């Protein structure tokens, strides 16, 4: 992880993530970005860039500027913007409803577009010289996200405080929490956890877990060890056949994430915040 005052850069494989301070004034951000990229000139030769702007939704020209600064100085493509869901709701810029098709560049076949994660904005790859088009694509995604948010209103991070369970959760114990649940120990066989949000187990999950218990299919289950396949996310139960096959073949232990894609539960090694799960849909915490 490289770090300047307001810009953090993390690289994983060929993918690079820029995290931009939420509070710094834009000209400072732009200055630091330029300075940083000048120093790193030629460091990256290929790969995609994700820009995370946190709580702040940049105005459209700022978004364009960040994109062009990064692209001209690094030679890489910015393929994604991230922001926190709260900033989708605020932000005073107008949205021009244009029928723009957005294709996730991670999914280059383009045939079946993955629905974007709630706070993920995919930028079309084919329009480097037309920032205006690129932005309108961004906006259509934002609008899409907003309308979806309004519909189910589910994906608010501030539902309730997370529940921390600090010792082994044992057989016969059960809990239903209206937010996220974090267990700082094992969840033993015969124990049951239901959370309206995510479930994170810093131990081995051997009991029953139900994330997104009130219907949120974006909820995930993360565990340091996931020997069991008895869990549920929203209304989906059991894991997808492909994952099941992979899982039984590889005895690979280690942190796992379970999430819903294409109406079934998938399990993948959990490698962190910017990891891609199932064709380019990252988990954002």
């Amino acid at each position, binding site marked *: 992880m490289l770090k300047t005052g307001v810009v953090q850069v993390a690289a994983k494989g060929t993918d690079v993530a820029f995290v931009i301070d939420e509070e710094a004034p834009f000209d400072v951000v732009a200055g630091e970005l330029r300075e940083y990229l000048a120093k790193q000139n030629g460091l990256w030769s290929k790969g995609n860039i994700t820009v995370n702007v946190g709580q702040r939704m940049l105005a459209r020209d700022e978004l364009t500027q960040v994109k062009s600064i990064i692209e001209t100085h690094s030679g890489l493509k910015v393929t994604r913007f991230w922001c926190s869901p709260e900033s989708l709701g605020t932000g005073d810029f107008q949205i021009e409803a244009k029928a723009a098709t957005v294709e996730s560049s991670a999914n280059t076949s383009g045939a079946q577009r993955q629905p974007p994660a709630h706070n993920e904005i995919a930028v079309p790859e084919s329009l480097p010289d037309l920032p205006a088009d690129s932005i309108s694509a961004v906006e259509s995604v934002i609008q899409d996200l907003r309308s979806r948010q309004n519909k189910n209103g589910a994906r608010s991070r501030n539902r309730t405080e997370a529940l921390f369970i600090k010792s082994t959760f*044992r*057989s016969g114990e059960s809990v239903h929490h209206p937010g996220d649940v974090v267990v700082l120990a094992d969840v033993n066989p015969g124990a049951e956890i239901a959370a309206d949000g995510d479930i994170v187990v810093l131990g081995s999950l051997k009991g029953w877990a139900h994330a997104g218990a009130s219907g949120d299919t974006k909820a995930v289950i993360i565990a340091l060890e996931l020997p069991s396949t008895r869990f549920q996310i929203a209304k989906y139960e059991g894991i997808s056949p492909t994952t099941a096959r992979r899982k039984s073949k590889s005895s690979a232990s280690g942190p796992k994430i379970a999430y819903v894609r294409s109406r079934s539960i998938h399990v993948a090694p959990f490698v962190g915040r910017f990891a891609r799960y199932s064709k380019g849909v990252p988990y954002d915490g």
Partner: protein
Amino acid sequence: MTGRTIVITSGKGGVGKTTATANIGTGLAMRGHKVIVIDTDIGLRNLDVIMGLENRIVYDLVNVIEGKCKMNQAMIRDKHDYELYLIPAAQTRDKNSIEPEQLRDLCAELEKEFDYVLIDCPAGIEQGFKNAIAAAQEAIIVTTPEVSAIRDADRVIGLLESSGLHRPRLIINRISPEMVKRGDMMDQKDVENLLAVEVIGLVPADENTVVAANRGIPVVHDRKSASGGAFLRIAARVDGEDIPLMDLEPKSGIFSKFRGLVGMNGRAYSHA
């Protein structure tokens, strides 16, 4: 003098609670303590049989609690020359004959007179279990290395914790080192990892235990037997002595030697 009241419990039946109570009680008495063991398995009493005191029973626990006799009239002194006493369970009554508070009061009384009050708990998690744990300040869980027994132990540990009995300690009984070696039995590490409590003793499956029980002389009197030695060490650990866990593997490898060195304090458990 204030003694310690310790409940020996398991959830599942037949795993060795009564055997452990008799042997730890005897072991503590052999170490010079004044000990009383109480059989709370009302309707299914057998602690008296294992200790060879069946013929001396006049009064029982329910009689004491109902005020039919004085406390010391129901205490039976052990045959051996130790300060070891038994209060037997009633055989013809049921578990609802006593209330948790009544047993708690009785034990509080006994703690004034004895160093250790050991409570042999009935199987299950119903009234008899609730009675037995109400009086104790400490708990020892007995399990065997079998999935069903471990599941019940896990349940019981949760119940103990929620009624304020934290950090129970664990005896893994009837371990067969040969079966463990063949991979046919869960090893101590697996059990310990799952239950996440301190292990206070590993007792091998040993026919001497059964022979001793039939004779009414707890196996701990035979210090050289595998299970007798194990129970004697458990009594010492209950008594506060820091004795590393003995490895029951037929031949000890590097790892088990290391475990031996680390002993019972080698793991930190979080009970935040």
